[in-house]
């Protein structure tokens, strides 16, 4: 059961102009597979990069800031 994700900082997003164009003919399955693999390969390389210090530090600081503070509701 999925919950509504739309919460923090949400606002209505207008439909993009390209959404109104007629639907393209679906790509052959084999071509879809090739694109999918390339996409995952490129994306996977981005995922496996080391995290910059700024985020490690930020996450540690956030955890410390929760001590004694009450979290805000959205």
């Amino acid at each position: 059961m999925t919950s509504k994700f739309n919460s923090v900082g949400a606002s209505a997003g207008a439909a993009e102009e390209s959404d109104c164009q007629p639907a393209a003919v679906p790509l052959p399955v084999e071509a879809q597979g090739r694109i999918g693999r390339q996409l995952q390969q490129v994306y996977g390389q981005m995922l496996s990069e080391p995290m910059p210090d700024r985020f490690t530090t930020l996450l540690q600081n956030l955890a410390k800031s929760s001590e004694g503070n009450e979290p805000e509701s959205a």
Partner: protein
Amino acid sequence: MMSGLSPDLELQHGLVSLTPNLRAFARTLCGSPDQADDLVQETLVKAWKHRASFAPGSNLKAWLFTILRNAYLSERRKRKYEVSDPDGVMAEQLSVRGEQSGHMDLIDFSKSFAQLPAEQREALILIGAEGFSYEDAALMCGCAVGTIKSRVNRARVRLAELTGIKDGSEIGDDTASSAGSR
């Protein structure tokens, strides 16, 4: 599901493990790695500030991606972001590796990907790279499932055209690069 950790600690662990995904997603949206990382920073701060609104056990990645997406759209409305570098952030990312390892096809792919409209890049990443369901992606993007499917398909068709992946042709084949074939 009950690990004995406090919700705050569990969330912090979740943020740490998902920050790479947020960074990658942000980079496909933004025009530069620095802007992407700024966006991720803003997302993490917002997520922590509003952590009471996250239901433990629900889809943390979807919740975080939605926060990031909303922050991106908000900044874009304020015209904070420049127009995307036509060569694409992913292409910059790979250009050095590509020259070294010969993966020129991935550079072509990244450059082609960068030419897609933002909503198609987003849909393709959510569905094809991050593995969200169409239903979840539609919820996150605030549109119909059919719209997501349409964007994904259009993105794939356009990528196939730009990279020459079609009709079973391999990238780099002479036949794939000839214009107007099939």
